[in-house]
C-alpha cells in the first residue's frame, strides 16, 4: 500500500523531488482492498446470477423452449403471442392497480403504525409482534382464511347480514370488478407489518435532539413527522419502497391462494402468468418472454433512478 511498493528506489529527497506532480499515488486497484474483497460476493452475484441469469432469460425468450430450455430461435413469436393474450393484458392492468394501492397504503399504514409504536407505548413488543405475525404465516393457508372471511356465504357479509343489515354486500373475491381490491386487503394484512418494522427501525435512529428542537419551534407532531422526520428517514424509505415494489412485481402466491386469478382471469397478475406458462403450461419461452417484459419495464424505471440515487454523488 505504500509508494515504496511501486517506486523503484527510496528517494533521497522526497520533498523536493516530489515536486508538483501527484506522484506516489498507489495502484487504484489496491485501494480499499478489504472493501473490494468483501464485495466479491456481491459482484459475483450481480454479474453471474442477476446479469447472467437475465441475459440467459432474455435469450431464451426468443426460442420456443417448452419444458426444457432449448436454443430453437423463433424470433419475436413469443412476444406477439404474449401481447395478444387477454390474460396478459388483464394481468398488467391488475398489477398497476394493485401496485399503486399497495404502495400507497402499505407506506401510509406502515408509517402510521410505526409512528404510534414510537410513542413510548406499553406492550410495544406485543403490538409489534401482532402486526408482524401475518408476515410469518405461509400464504397458502392464510389466503384460504381470507377466502373464507371475504366469502359472502359465511364470511363478513353473512355476519353483518345476520346482525340485521340485510342489504350489506361485501364479496370482493367473487366480483370481477373489485376482486383486485380483495386481494389488496389481504396483501396489506400480510405486508404492512414488515413495512412498520422497517420504518420503526428508521424512527429509532432519529436523534432525540431533533424532536426537542421541533417542540421548541412549536412544530406540531404531524408536521414534524412529515417535514423533518420523514425526510431524515429517506434512506429507510427508499429501502422500504424497493422492498414493497419488488414484492408487488413478484406478487404471486397471494393471488394463487386467494383467487387463483379468478373469478375468471379477473385477478391475474404478471408473475402468475410467468409461472403458469413456465411450469404448468410447460412453455418456458412464453414465460421468459413475459418475465423479460416485466424486467425491461422495471429496468427502465430503476436504472436511471438508481444511478441518480446511488451513483455519483456522495453520501448524505
Amino acid at each position, binding site marked *: 500500500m505504500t509508494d515504496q511498493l511501486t517506486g523503484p528506489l527510496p528517494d533521497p529527497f522526497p520533498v523536493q523531488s516530489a515536486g508538483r506532480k501527484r506522484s506516489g499515488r498507489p495502484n487504484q486497484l489496491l485501494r480499499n482492498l478489504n472493501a473490494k474483497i468483501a464485495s466479491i460476493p456481491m459482484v459475483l452475484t450481480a454479474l453471474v446470477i442477476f446479469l447472467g441469469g437475465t441475459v440467459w432469460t432474455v435469450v431464451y425468450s426468443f426460442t420456443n423452449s417448452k419444458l426444457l430450455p432449448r436454443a430453437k430461435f423463433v424470433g419475436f413469436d413469443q412476444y406477439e403471442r404474449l401481447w395478444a393474450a387477454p390474460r396478459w393484458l388483464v394481468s398488467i392492468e391488475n398489477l398497476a392497480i394493485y401496485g399503486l394501492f399497495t404502495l400507497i397504503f402499505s407506506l401510509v399504514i406502515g408509517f402510521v403504525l410505526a409512528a404510534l409504536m414510537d410513542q413510548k407505548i406499553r406492550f410495544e413488543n406485543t403490538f409489534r409482534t401482532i402486526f408482524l405475525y401475518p408476515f410469518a404465516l405461509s400464504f397458502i393457508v392464510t389466503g384460504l382464511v381470507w377466502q373464507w372471511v371475504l366469502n359472502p356465504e359465511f364470511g363478513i357479509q353473512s355476519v353483518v347480514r345476520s346482525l340485521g343489515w340485510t342489504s350489506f354486500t361485501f364479496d370482493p373475491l367473487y366480483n370481477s370488478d373489485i376482486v383486485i381490491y380483495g386481494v389488496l386487503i389481504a396483501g396489506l394484512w400480510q405486508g404492512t407489518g414488515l413495512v412498520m418494522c422497517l420504518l420503526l427501525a428508521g424512527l429509532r435512529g432519529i*436523534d432525540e*435532539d*431533533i424532536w*426537542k*428542537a*421541533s*417542540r*421548541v*419551534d*412549536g*412544530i*406540531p407532531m404531524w*408536521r414534524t413527522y412529515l*417535514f*423533518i422526520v420523514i*425526510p*431524515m428517514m*429517506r434512506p429507510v424509505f427508499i429501502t422500504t419502497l424497493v422492498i414493497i415494489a419488488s414484492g408487488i412485481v413478484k406478487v404471486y402466491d397471494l393471488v394463487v391462494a386467494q383467487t387463483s386469478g379468478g373469478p375468471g382471469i379477473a385477478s391475474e397478475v404478471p408473475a402468475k402468468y410467468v409461472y403458469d406458462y413456465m411450469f404448468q403450461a410447460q412453455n418456458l419461452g412464453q414465460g421468459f418472454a413475459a418475465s423479460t417484459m416485466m424486467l425491461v419495464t422495471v429496468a427502465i424505471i430503476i436504472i436511471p433512478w438508481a444511478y441518480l440515487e446511488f451513483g455519483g454523488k456522495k453520501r*448524505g
Partner: protein
Amino acid sequence: MSYSVSIKDLSLSFGAVKVLENLNLDIRDGEFLVLLGSSGCGKSTLLNCIAGLLEPTDGQIFIKDRNVTWEEPKDRGIGMVFQSYALYPQMSVEKNLSFGLRVAKVPADKIREKVARAAEILQIQQLLDRKPAALSGGQRQRVAIGRALVRDVDVFLFDEPLSNLDAKLRSELRVEIKRLHQSLKNTMIYVTHDQIEALTLADRIAIMKSGVIQQLDDPMTIYNRPKNLFVAGFIGSPPMNFFRGELANREGKVVFTTGGADFSLYGYQTETSLEPGRKVVLGVRPEHVMLDEDVPEAAEIHEATVDIEEPMGADNLLWLKHAGHVISVRTAGTRRYSPGTKVRLGFDMSVASLFDAGTEERI
C-alpha cells in the same frame, strides 16, 4: 413583583443521578441572565427544564407568572439554541431558519425578511442553500442561533451559542445579541463559558455548582465580592490566587499570615469582625497583585522570584514563587520580566477576598 421566569424548588434526577436539587431562580422581565458553572453542573438540564423538554422530578416553573410546569414547550413562548445545535439535517439552512415561522403561518414576505435579517447578522447569507452536513462547525452553530433569532418569543434560551466561533465573529455576535436584547426587551438566559461574554452581556450572573446556584448577582459583585471560594475560583482567568493561612493580631491590627509572611488587611471591607486565630483563605486576583513600583510604600516588602513569563498580547502573565506559593500576576503586556528576576510583591487588599477555611464562605 413580576418575574419573567421564575423557578421554584426545581429538582431533577436521571435515575440515581441527581442533577438539579431544589433550585430557585427568579429572572426579571427583560433581564439578561448568564448561567455560569463548571462542566456538567446542570446548566443545559436547567435550560431544558425551562423549555419544557425535560420533566422536572419536583418543583415548578413560571413564565410570565403563568405556571407552565406541565405545559408543552410550544406554549411557553420560548426560543432555544441547543448546545448540540440539533439542526434539521435534511433541510437547507434557509428552511431550517424559516420552518418554525412557516408552521406559525407567518406571511411569506415577512419570513423572507426575517430570515434575511438573521442571515445577515450571522453572516451566513451565502450558505442559505446548503444542508447542515456541508457546513463547518461554526457555521452550524450560527444556523442554530439563527433558528432561535427569527422567532418572536418572550424568553430566549442560549446554550453556549458562540463556543465554536472565532473571536472576531464572536465579539460581533455578542454585540448583536446585546443589541437584540435591548431592542426586543425580552428575557434571555444564556449559558456560556466565556467570562468576557458573561461579564459584558449579563445583567446578572448565576453561578452554578452541582445543580445548586451559588451566587446570583450583577457581574461586578460576582467578580469583586464572590460569595464563596467556589465562585471566587470559578470567575476570572487566570484564576484568583488563594493563600491558606490564618488571621493574626500584629500590633493591634489584624493581619493575614501564611507561611511566615504577614499581609496587612488594610482596605479590606467586611461586615463581620475579623477575629484573630480564625483559619481563612485569602483570595487575590492576578491583576490585583502589585509588582515593584506599583507596591505602595506602606505595604510590607515581600520578595518573589519570577518563575515563568506568559506573554498574552495586551497582558503579560507572570508566575511568581513566594513562600511556597505559586502566584499568578497579570501585568501590562509591555512590562517584561525574564525568569529568575526578583520582584517586590504586594496585594491590593481593597479588592481581595477572605473566606472562612471551613465553610468556604466569604467573611
